């Protein structure tokens, strides 16, 4: 995994490339923490990610939570590869805001209201 932080006017864009797996989980956590500390808006770009495991998903979720708590914006930016979306879906994260994106949308705001929704009906993508 490779994480690149791009800062501009209070917005920090974290570009993640390669496999986001347990091997790089500590690194991802550090990058996300760094980004959270340095900006008011966090954009995570998964366009070049090639794989995503549970450790990465829960880190993204935790980052999202942290941003929400401090009133910052958190978005998954960029075209998320279909494979990553499938991963989110398979892990049952489909109702989880961070994954509730269409692959087309460039940047989606998180809807805090949908957190904790209990439905297990699959959502069409």
């Amino acid at each position: 995994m490779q994480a690149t932080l791009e800062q501009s006017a209070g917005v920090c864009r974290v570009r993640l490339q390669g496999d986001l797996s347990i091997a790089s989980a500590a690194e991802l956590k550090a990058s996300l923490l760094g980004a959270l500390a340095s900006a008011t808006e966090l954009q995570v770009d998964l366009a070049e990610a090639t794989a995503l495991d549970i450790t990465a998903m829960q880190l993204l979720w935790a980052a999202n939570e942290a941003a929400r708590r401090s009133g910052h914006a958190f978005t998954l930016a960029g075209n998320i590869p279909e494979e990553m979306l499938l991963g989110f879906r398979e892990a049952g994260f489909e109702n989880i805001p961070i994954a509730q994106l269409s692959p087309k949308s460039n940047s989606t705001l998180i809807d805090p209201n949908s957190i904790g929704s209990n439905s297990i009906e699959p959502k069409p993508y």
Partner: protein
Amino acid sequence: MTDKFKQAFIEEARDILVELESSLLELNENRTDRELVGRVFRAMHTIKGSGGMFGFDKLAAFVHNLENAFDEVLNNRLAVSSELVNLSLSALDQIKAMLQEAVGQGQASDEVCQDLTAKLRRLTEKTETTAVPATPLPPVPVAPLAAVTETREWAVHFRPGADLMRNGADPLLLMRELRQLGDLRVKASLTEIPPIGELDPERCYVSWDMVLTTGAGAEAIADVFIFVTDLCELTIEPMKEATPAPVVAQVAAPISPVTALAGALAALGGKPAIPPPPMASPSASPPPGPKAAGSKAAGSKAVESKPWGRRQSDTPDNATSIRVPAAKLDQFVDLVGELVTVQARLFDIAVRREDPEVVAVSEEIERLTTALREKSIGIRMLPIRATFERFRRLVHDLARDLHKEVELTIEGAETELDKSVLDQLNDPMMHLIRNSMDHGIESAEKRRAAGKRPGATIHLSARHSGASVLISIADDGGGIDAAAVRERAVEKGLVAADAQLSESQIFSLILAPGFSTARQITDVSGRGVGMDVVRRSVEMLRGGIEITSKPGIGTTVTLRLPLTLAIIDGLLVRVERAYFVLPLATTLECIELTRKDIEKANGKHVANVRGEIIPYIRLREYFNMPEKRPEREQIMVAETEEGRFGFVVDEVLGDHQTVIKNLGRFYRQVEMVSGATILGNGTVALILDPQRLVRDALRTMTVGSRAGAREKSRLAVKEAAGAMAASS
């Protein structure tokens, strides 16, 4: 990281193989025990699965054939035969060789591998035409699963433990595997994910509630999680009442096409007579339907009355124990030993300074060190089970080769012994069992003629007795012909022709070096081969051997072994300025020896202890120390194989629990000293071996070259003490 996991796999696989071996041998005795078949199958499945997971593809492929064979057995399409058991045992050897190869030791032969694979295939292929008679299975085309199985919904709750991902398991992959069983709906619960700052990035905090719609049974669902059962919480429950489905249909697992086939066949032809158990209680055991129907009955039995997914081996101990390389443990015990020495020095100083505060601290430290030492020794203690179980195979193979019927029974397998003792126990026990099998146990015809059961028994047992462990190897064979042994011993000049010998003394002659090798006496008495090897190994362990035998009834060889080799309880004694430790275990009492006593005995080295005449060895003389005897000396009376003997010393300083240090390679020839220890003041005390001291004294006495031998040992001991003092 991968290597670490591979290593863990290899170690685990070795454990499983040991278990597997004994299960197979047990199966050979009880060929219809379905639970055993299930156990064997699961062990193989585990090896295959984790082998594949860690990149042992060749191994996994090989085990696959073996597993298939037992799948056939589970499905009643193949009966357990000697052929299958022997083939499986050979296959186990091959798996062991493959594991050895993986750690760079030796090479597994590919030919053997192919040969075994071919034989296994032939065995399993046969089943297609010759099914077990009890279950005539017509050749039915495999129906699609859906056609024969009712699908139902299962609620699966899966909560990975803290280390699940660190151990290389991936929940996503597990769920993907679940999806292969049927339609899966997944809901992740994220409530346990901590704030990002406190989050352990390598731990999975997510848990899942899933609904799986499948025709597979709980067993098959649990099988998906088979490698992580220790690492997660898992519950599998049926959601709601499904249309009554034949039990067999539910157990058909798509995991194995063979199982599926059996399910299909059973559903079409077998017609279970008993309705399925109420769905609300997943723990209910499958009904005793027709044999063909119980395709996985043995498997589910193991899970009976336990939450699904938890297996028999998952005792709490398993889940909470850790694996540590033995070398690390040895280092630890070594360090504790050093600590004991330093503590002794501290205590010494504290007493000399007469400082109550330091004494108090020193006493506290003493208490802690003692506890620490006991605990550290305890860690090294292992049940003898594995050592005993290993001999099942030996007995099985030997019985086959010798055409004898022998059953091995085990008692007290939970008795714990120090690992280093256990490690060195294998050889002597193997020799003893071989002897029993070869010479002790008669042929079936002979046994019948003698009115005995044709099947003989070898009984291994272990039990504690004070600071020792008694291990006995008993057979119900012909026993030892004491007269023949005696005759032979006289012939060899080991005993005088008119010597008065008790039976046990005669039997112990067998242990004499060279007694066995010269001539075959097996036809007369049995015993002999390698008995002095046994004696030597047991003596190395500071143990003793006792043989009892009754003609026509059997022979029992009992090994008395110390619990541990690292520590010895001894009595610290002084002769001049030299310190010695005598093992407490053999010491009976200390009595005073005055000039008067010596005069009474006319200068002979014997003492009268409450009417009993006890010969003694004066260590001062034995080690050739200056002839300046104190007015009062002390005799330490010790029990040896040769009877009671006294050792005369200047002073007895008290009991002393010591950590034994080896003298090193140079002093290996010094027999009468079993090691050395460092005292509180930094001096070295040699630990004496009373047994060998007495034997040496007797030998030099009879040979008549006492002075020469004494001189030799004195020099060696002196040298050893000097070297130890120099190195400490």
